[in-house]
């Protein structure tokens, strides 16, 4: 187990996603990953959020389909992750 400092989080509108991957590279701490099998009803893969989001808005700013809502925690939280 290790704990990851997480300053922010996002809400992902999975159905709006068109699976373009732009958010993945855009995310500075690299906490967005695309699904590999799961697709939305239109058949697109979509991003998942891992611990460590900083609430930097890079994803929401670059997503062509307005899939993200970005939040900042009032104070950072620690999230436990299994190695």
């Amino acid at each position: 187990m290790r704990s990851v400092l997480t300053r922010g989080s996002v809400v992902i509108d999975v159905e709006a996603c068109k699976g373009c991957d732009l958010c993945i590279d855009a995310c500075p701490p690299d906490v967005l990953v695309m699904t590999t099998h799961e697709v939305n009803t239109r058949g697109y893969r979509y991003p998942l959020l891992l611990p460590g989001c900083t609430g930097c808005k890079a994803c929401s700013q670059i997503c062509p389909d307005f899939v993200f809502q970005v939040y900042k925690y009032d104070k950072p939280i620690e999230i436990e992750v299994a190695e």
Partner: protein
Amino acid sequence: MAERELAMTGIGGQGVQFAAQVMSRGAIAEGRQVMMFGSYGGMMRGGNTDATLVVADGPIESPPTVPRVWAAMVMHHEYWSFVQQQLRPGSVVFVNSTIFRGELDASYQVIELPVTDIAVDVGNIMGASMVMAGAISKATGLVSLDSLLGAVEASLPSYRVKHVAINHQALRAGFDAIDAEVAPAWSARVGA
């Protein structure tokens, strides 16, 4: 002059337009005349994709879209209502039973086949429409299997020629899945 109208409907990704082209070229190879009008809703995945195929022994009198069809190929139920309106008692309806959910009028001559499953079996998910084309060939003789096989390559974009083989497999699989010519296209004089 006999004209055979085949209405085709499905969703993006099932290969409906490709199948329409293969059947068209196959029919031409047999000395028939052909008209084919396809329509599809934009670039989005899962969008509707329809096609009207008319095969005839002489000059085509049918306009690009027709009010009544001799037969229909229904790959998906999502947008099939338009095709439904073109069916009349006796129309031969080929249905993709793997996916199709909907009412089928008893007056039609319905032929159900799980073409998507079959396509997956032959390892060609995109080949469902090819399977159906093979089935239609066997069941109606609208276009012979050989002609279909011969039409595949010309219908593929140059950078896709390597896909000829798997499409041939799909066609054969569909052809074999039907045991007899149950609705001959060219014997009786049906349809205008």
